[in-house]
């Protein structure tokens, strides 16, 4: 189904957080203030790699209006953080490893005064030459950034099967290419920050964005040396994250300062500081050799992935796992030899980012497919189909995966699409000047959801009838823009035929929600759906049985609906949230029900794990979302500018719960991928950022987008599928780059292997452009 407002009909659901957002009334956590609050700031390293010889804070401490100056000595607990591998110091003590490393923090009565106090801190360094690339870091004799073993290696991955040497020997053609991808910045509009409030009972209230409040709480407790219950984390609403706020950022400093000063402390990073300290997408170098038989069947695939993980681990290892898994694409390949390495450097820290390493891998594997198809003189889509995995084949890691038709469905839907059909007759417009070239390209992807086998991936949730008579759900997921609250509303209205005013939705507050995992890896919608599937039956039967007792009508004649429980025969089955049936009235209201019995009787909890493959393959996924993307691109061969004119995304992710949210996620992901492909790179020179703000780091503006963006959703799932809607938070962002570069190739004949697309590669001398214009007309 082509997804848009018209095709969505009544499912076009207005977001409950809409009014607050369009009026500016909604308070983000960085908007919060308290009367007696003070302001925190962090002093970061002057060098990407250096020994700290001395730190003198006396000048800053003596300043009027300065409440506290903290260094590593003031960390009561563990002076380290990191969501998986805590190796990043809260405050560096002896060595700094990147330009965002924190050495001290101050709290003062104004942000300006806090900044002045930072200037008054004296630090002596012994400057060292930074390891500014994985190659430099792995070179023999390079200093070791962590006590981690030789060569500054954070993590290695490997997939080997068959025999690639023999496979290549039997090949008719082999394509070898090295692909490079940029250090993309999340560029969420709201930079990191929040308010840290100690209360009179010694508890700390943390109002700061994160994708996993419980994980933050655990890490903060470890740093402060207190119990987790001593901390409450309130973590929504969030002004964008895309994976970038999953790690702690300002929280350790805000928390420690607030506790030291006994006053609320506000932190809010400037954009420059956010760039300097924040996570980025892993820049990767992916070398690929792929060989095919005379018939065009892939026989052998050798891949070497090198990821620059920067100064600290964060999720570098799982990102590399994901990239490794996805660099085989959805293809069946008998002989495989993949090795990945994630390397510590003195560059900015790379971590989690929408797509999670899939973007880099899919750019490379799909690039190979197009190159191979060209050598075969075969249609690139047909070439893919020949090599595509069968639906019952094991997954990329030879693990069992859930069988669906998603892959062939997206392939076929794209094959039929008008946009992709254009590639057969490259769109040449005689009205265009000869230096303007157009082309169409497409790419396909299977993208795993959830954290994968062997990584704890808990889920759960709570459903209750609260004291006010609202159907209440509570999850530890976060709203960072994706529309989770709206989706939850829709799921609940679907389940209970109630209206949104019967609901109370609670997320993002560790005091009020059960531990149900993180909002990452495109998993929240699936997890919430699965939780509600488990909770609905006991919850409903409790409601109906109490309603039956109160009304004297047998429970099987009752049904939940708007405002309460109805007689089935008085509530037409198609009643929806917006259309209460006339001529009938609610039998027992939720408010009356809630007065009945103890509050605890109305609470239902569930705990479970995200579904993973039954096979012992670390990181292996079980559920995948499938997508195909086509792109029409126009290249100006005089300026080297490539412009995306038209795109179509076909996504097979199961039922669309929330069409507005679905379209928004695909559109947003697609435009983020456009930036990844054409303009975005947080450039580092000698391990320092040269692009420090949004004036030089160029994310797409409204002028740069493809206004023809169509989203086609394939909603089929196997009969009785117990997992419901699959995640789509990432799938819109993973396959556009290779589609664009394929289109660029059709337009210009240039194979691009580096992102963002280097303009100089697309520039042709005027004489050539004109000649081509003549010969093609």
């Amino acid at each position, binding site marked *: 189904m082509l997804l848009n407002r018209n095709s969505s009909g009544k499912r076009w659901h207005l977001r409950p957080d809409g009014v607050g957002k369009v009026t500016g009334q909604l308070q983000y956590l960085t908007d919060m203030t308290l009367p007696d609050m003070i302001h925190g700031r962090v002093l970061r390293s002057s060098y990407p790699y250096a020994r700290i010889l001395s730190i003198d804070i006396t000048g800053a401490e003596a300043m009027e209006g300065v409440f506290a100056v903290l260094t590593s000595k003031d960390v009561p607990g563990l002076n380290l953080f990191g969501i998986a591998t805590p190796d990043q110091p809260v405050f560096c003590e002896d060595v700094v490893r990147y330009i965002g490393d924190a050495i001290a923090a101050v709290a003062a009565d104004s942000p300006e005064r806090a900044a002045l106090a930072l200037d008054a801190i004296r630090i002596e360094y012994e400057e060292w030459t930074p390891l500014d690339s994985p190659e430099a870091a792995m070179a023999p004799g390079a200093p070791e950034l962590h006590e981690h073993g030789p060569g500054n290696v954070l993590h290695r991955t490997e997939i080997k099967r068959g025999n690639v040497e023999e496979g290549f020997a039997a090949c008719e053609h082999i394509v070898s290419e090295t692909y490079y991808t940029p250090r993309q910045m999340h560029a969420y509009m709201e930079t990191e920050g929040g308010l840290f409030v100690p209360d009179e009972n010694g508890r700390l209230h943390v109002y700061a964005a994160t994708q996993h409040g419980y994980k933050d709480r655990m890490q903060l407790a470890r740093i402060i040396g207190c119990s987790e219950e001593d901390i409450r984390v309130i973590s929504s609403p969030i002004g964008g994250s895309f994976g970038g706020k999953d790690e702690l950022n300002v929280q350790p400093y805000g928390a420690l300062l607030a506790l030291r000063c006994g006053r609320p402390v506000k932190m809010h990073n400037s954009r420059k500081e956010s760039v300097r300290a924040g996570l980025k997408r892993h820049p990767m170098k992916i070398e690929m050799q792929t060989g095919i038989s005379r018939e065009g069947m892939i026989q052998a695939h050798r891949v070497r992935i090198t990821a620059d993980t920067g100064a600290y681990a964060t999720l570098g290892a799982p990102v590399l796992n994901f990239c490794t898994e996805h660099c085989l694409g959805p293809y069946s390949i008998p002989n495989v030899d993949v090795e990945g390495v994630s390397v510590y450097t003195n560059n900015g820290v790379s971590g989690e980012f929408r797509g999670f390493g899939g973007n880099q891998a899919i750019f490379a594997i799909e690039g190979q497919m197009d190159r191979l198809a060209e050598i075969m003189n075969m249609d690139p889509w047909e070439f893919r189909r020949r090599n595509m995995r069968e639906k019952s084949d094991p997954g990329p890691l030879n693990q069992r995966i859930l069988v669906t038709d998603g892959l062939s469905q997206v392939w076929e839907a794209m094959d039929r699409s008008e946009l992709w059909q254009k590639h057969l007759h490259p769109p040449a417009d005689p009205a265009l000047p000869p230096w303007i070239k157009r082309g169409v390209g497409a790419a396909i992807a299977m993208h795993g959801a959830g954290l994968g086998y062997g990584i704890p991936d808990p889920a759960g949730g709570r459903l209750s009838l609260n004291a006010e008579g609202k159907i209440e759900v509570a999850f530890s997921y976060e709203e960072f823009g994706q529309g989770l609250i709206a989706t939850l509303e829709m799921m609940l209205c679907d389940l209970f035929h109630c209206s949104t005013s019967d609901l109370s939705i609670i997320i993002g507050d560790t005091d009020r929600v059960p531990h149900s995992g993180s909002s990452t890896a495109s998993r929240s919608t699936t997890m919430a759906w699965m939780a509600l599937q488990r909770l609905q039956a006991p919850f409903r039967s409790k409601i109906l049985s109490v309603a039956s007792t109160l009304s004297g009508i047998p429970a099987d004649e009752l049904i939940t609906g708007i405002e309460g429980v109805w007689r089935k025969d008085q509530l037409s089955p198609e009643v929806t949230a917006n259309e209460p049936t006339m001529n009938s009235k609610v039998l027992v209201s939720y408010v009356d029900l809630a007065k009945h019995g103890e509050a605890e009787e109305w609470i239902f909890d569930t705990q479970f794990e995200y579904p993973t493959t039954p096979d012992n393959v670390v990181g292996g996924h079980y559920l995948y979302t499938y997508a195909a993307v086509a792109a029409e691109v126009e290249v100006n061969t005089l300026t080297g500018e490539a412009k995306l004119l038209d795109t179509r995304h076909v996504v097979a992710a199961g039922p669309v719960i929330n069409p507005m949210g679905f379209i928004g996620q695909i559109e947003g992901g697609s435009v983020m991928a456009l930036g990844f492909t054409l303009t975005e790179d947080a450039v580092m020179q000698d391990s320092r950022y040269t692009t420090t703000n*949004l004036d030089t780091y160029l*994310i797409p*503006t*409204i002028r740069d987008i493809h206004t023809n963006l169509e989203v086609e959703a394939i909603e089929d799932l196997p009969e009785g599928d117990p997992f419901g809607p699959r995640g789509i938070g990432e799938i819109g962002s993973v396959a556009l780059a290779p589609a664009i570069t394929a289109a660029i190739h059709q337009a210009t004949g240039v194979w691009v292997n580096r992102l963002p697309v280097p303009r100089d590669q697309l520039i042709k001398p005027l004489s050539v452009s004109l000649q081509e214009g003549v010969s093609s007309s």
Partner: protein
Amino acid sequence: MTEPLSNFWTAVVNGEKKQLHIAQTTRLVDVLRSHLNLTGTKVSCEVGRCGACMVLMNGEPVNSCLVMAYQCAGSEITTIEGLLGEKEGELHPIQQAFVEEGGFQCGYCTPGMVISTKALLDRNPQPSQEQIETGLCGNLCRCTGYGGILRAVNKVIDERDRVGSTP
């Protein structure tokens, strides 16, 4: 240290006269967010690129991170909080369209985007697609991909057409 020079600053903010004792080099964005607690105006890049801090100054859109208090003293400032619908409690038609078309996700760019849309449509009620793009290219949105935003702006224009053409 010495206190920065400060004296009285007055302006009309969202129709109300405001008088503050602040340094004349305070940025308008800080006047609004910190001194007047009007946090609907957002701060993101602080170099005039993202438009999150967009407000109207005497009807013209300005990046409030680039305007100093002394530059806007005596002006009439409209922030997102000052954008009102026709009737009490109603959304402005631009805001309404953003809600209906899903012209936001995280919402952090939204106030600035709505203000820029207002400025655009005030000056040019019938902008072409290209004029819309020019009018809004000073506002960055990282979430929506701009699709919903464009649909919202077009909806406002269409609605006006429709209402305008009925006698």
